[in-house]
């Protein structure tokens, strides 16, 4: 019975198609959980919407671009101050959010005029900024506002600006994933190839699917600089709008997050013949392997080996210090999707940690295939897990640390399980060699937290015992 019907799901038995317990000798030909399917209403799922998949995850990372959200105020308010993706220009992307602040009259009579005015105002208020993403939201999609026509009009009137339209209302698809898709595909079809980059190295690549969480991109950039590789575009960590228009000029696409950004790599291969190389940027052996592959592609293997040797010399002793102390730790990963397969084996190989349960919010079956291939037997694989399922799984596998978002982190705190922010990190970056030491340190500090022991102590029981002892 490898597909599991949890006790809490007895009234929604279809959930058993989403929860898999791997058994020795089984593989993905036998069982592959359903994923990227509609959520059952009222289950307290962890999923967000397509709009946030586009704006919050990908577009909003760009450091030189206004993010104009055409809709009521909430879509803007809610996708602001929820991410940790700094930039090297003072975090313009995290400081601001823009909304057309749709009101009832615009719903009734159409919001295109409102959008046009808001776009012009935004450019006027921030005269140094010349690039913009415009997003539809649920109500503006439902009333059928033509945001592309508005953008075109503004671009005609303001020749120095460029605007990209992303039409992915929150109800599109079943999760954030739809927003990733819409943004990827529209970007390559509309914007890639419209800017020619300045080429400064004979080795050029795009780095795709890394969003500079706590400086991931900037850390990895030091490696590429040392290797003499020019990154034409970062999709989209610490990236700029125009860099992304020049993606067609790179020789290689290196993909980290295949879920959010695999589409554009596929299209770049199909439309421009640029090969796609998938790597894992988390973990020592993975990172080294990725660097080796990139260097082999360019024929600069010696440079790669030198860098890996230097990094190992610097960071491996620290990693090993943590490995010694984390060996055998039971970990759960409840994040978006790809981090499940990026991390399950790397924490095992590099830190001796055992991943006992994993839940993906928006992974597709491709992600589930990867994670089941990489993960161990006796581990639970959950698609679109919900709150009651989490409680039950915790009882079943007793994780000692959970990598998840802050809200779920607050929930499991009450169960005396420490959490580490699996999305925005605790104290990152987590990518690269130095980054994985950071991850190990945060996991160790979480597990070693003395408060957990204090929380578990019932002082009434303790007092009684102490009194009894004193009496004897």
């Amino acid at each position, binding site marked *: 019975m490898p597909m599991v019907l949890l006790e809490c799901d007895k009234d929604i038995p279809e959930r058993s198609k989403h929860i898999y317990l791997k058994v020795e000798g089984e593989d993905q030909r036998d069982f592959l959980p359903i994923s990227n399917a509609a959520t059952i*209403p009222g289950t*307290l799922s962890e999923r967000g919407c397509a709009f946030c998949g586009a704006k919050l995850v990908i577009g909003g990372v760009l450091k030189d671009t206004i993010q104009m959200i055409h809709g009521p105020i909430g879509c*803007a308010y809610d996708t602001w101050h929820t991410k940790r993706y700094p930039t090297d220009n003072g975090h313009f992307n995290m400081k601001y959010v823009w909304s057309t602040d749709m009101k*009832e009259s615009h*719903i009734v009579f159409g919001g295109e005029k409102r959008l046009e005015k808001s776009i012009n105002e935004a450019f006027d208020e921030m005269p140094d900024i010349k690039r913009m993403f415009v997003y539809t939201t649920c109500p503006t999609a439902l009333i059928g506002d033509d945001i592309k026509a508005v953008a075109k009009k503004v671009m005609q009137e303001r020749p120095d600006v460029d605007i990209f339209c992303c039409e992915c209302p929150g109800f599109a698809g079943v999760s954030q994933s739809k927003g990733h898709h819409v943004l990827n595909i529209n970007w390559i079809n509309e914007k890639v190839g419209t800017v020619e980059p300045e080429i400064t190295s004979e080795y050029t690549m795009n780095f795709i699917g890394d969003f500079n969480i706590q400086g991931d991109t900037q850390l990895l950039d030091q490696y590429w600089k040392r290797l003499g590789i020019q990154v034409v575009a970062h999709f989209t960590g610490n990236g700029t709008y125009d860099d992304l228009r020049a993606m067609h000029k790179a020789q290689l696409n290196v993909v980290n997050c295949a879920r959010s950004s695999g589409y554009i790599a596929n299209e770049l291969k199909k439309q421009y013949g640029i090969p796609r190389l998938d790597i894992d940027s988390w973990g020592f052996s993975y990172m080294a392997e990725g660097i080796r592959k990139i260097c082999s592609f360019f024929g600069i293997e010696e440079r790669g080996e030198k860098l890996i040797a230097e990094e190992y010399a610097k960071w491996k002793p620290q990693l090993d210090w943590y490995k010694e102390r984390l060996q055998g730790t039971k970990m759960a990963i409840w994040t978006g999707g790809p981090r499940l397969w990026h991390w399950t084996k790397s924490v095992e190989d590099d830190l001796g940690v055992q991943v006992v349960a994993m839940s993906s919010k928006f992974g597709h079956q491709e992600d589930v295939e990867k994670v089941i291939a990489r993960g161990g037997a006796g581990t639970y694989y959950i698609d679109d897990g919900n709150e009651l399922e989490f409680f039950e799984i915790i009882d079943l596998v007793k994780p000692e640390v959970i990598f998840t978002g802050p809200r779920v982190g607050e929930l499991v705190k009450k169960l005396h399980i420490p959490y580490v922010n699996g999305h925005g990190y605790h104290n990152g970056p987590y990518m690269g060699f130095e980054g994985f030491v950071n991850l190990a340190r945060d996991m160790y500090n979480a597990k070693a937290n003395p408060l957990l022991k204090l929380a578990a102590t019932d002082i009434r029981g303790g007092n009684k015992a102490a009194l009894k002892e004193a009496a004897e």
Partner: protein
Amino acid sequence: MGCEITTRERAGVINPMYDCQPAGAQYAGIGLKDSIPLVHGGQGCSMFVRLLFAQHFKENFDVASTSLHEDSAVFGGHMRIQEGILTLVRRYPQLRIIPVITTCSTEVIGDDVEGNIKYALDQIAKEFPGREVNVFAVHTPSFKSSQVGGYSECVLSTWKAIAKEKAPATGKLNIFPGWVNPGDVVLLKHYLKEFGVQGDIFMDTEDFDSPMLPDKSIHTHGRTTVEDIKASTGALASLSLARYEAASTVDFLKNTHGVPGHQIAAPYGIANTDAMLQKISEITGKPIPDSLVHERGVAIDALQDLAHMFFANKKVAIFGHPDLVIGLADFCTEVELEPTLLLLGDDNTRYKKDPRLLAMKEKVPYDMEVVCNADLWELEKRVKDGSKKYDLILGHSKGRYVAIDANIPMARVGFPTFDRAGLYRHPTMGYRGAMLLGEQIANAMFTHMEYTRDREWLLNTW
């Protein structure tokens, strides 16, 4: 000299001050015990609001979604309402209240929420005979009002749905504080206790600050029960402490059940708190207890050390919920701070006629500006272009970068305050709230003096 009340002129918003209506409704909904609000809309409409609550309180709150997908947008989402309600009722046996909160998308689609709730209730009656689950619609299209109105709307809808009958007289007071922190709820309860007056705080959010316990039990939820709501119709009187968040429900109790209602100024600052206590005394016939006179004295004593030495002539910009902003302006004037910019963040046209603002307009002895329907860009622009100088910013965490970039001391107050630890635990209301806020402001200024080497030696001997 004088006070000018203006409105944002731009169509678009840069850095909003408030979230949308459904967010406010969700905040009210989690204040109920054995309640899981069900948001009828896209998943983001509840997901991010839950995250926002988690950021502010460092706690998890349960809010469900009907997970509106494309087919529902085309064909209507009614089945998802029924399915959502039934799934919740089946999987959460203790559940007694489900506010069904609409959003922009489902209001545009025009789903028959009431009809679907009725169908679901029939189904519940069949499946769970004898089980009472209060399921009701809260209409909060995001393109109207803001989180402020959404909060008010959800409280009102809850009362309309549950407080249907006139209860026997309880002799208790209903206190509707509006959107406040657990620290404020604890303070109000303390006041009632000192008075020897029985009363209920609606919503009772005291447990939004909840413990880690040895038995691992989870107590993070509202405390306002179905019984409390039903009994509120038999109360001695209702007090609304927030004109824009609580008045509508107090009016409902008055008009439908004859419970005398009193709208008073939100008790921020000494005088507003005095007025509240005098009102409670007047309604209940009980004298203001000595202990509160003592607390009042302690607060004034503490503020006295700060006002004319550190606060006097300092220009303050304030933003946040309307009742809070207006209340804080009163507080500022009590301690010689000069509130020269007030920002109110939605298109409610009643703000301009608010008697408290009109009174300020009459008496303010320096230039003061009130911007309605404001965003935080209104603040940032004024700070950046140098046309106005501010010595202090009072507001929530969404404005943090204005203060950081311009290097202006900022005291976090209101909702959300995720970039400071534990603020939700402390009252802002009452004497104690005034004292704590005054001290928080002073300490923010002191730290700023030290980091900018601006007469930091002044504190060498203070």
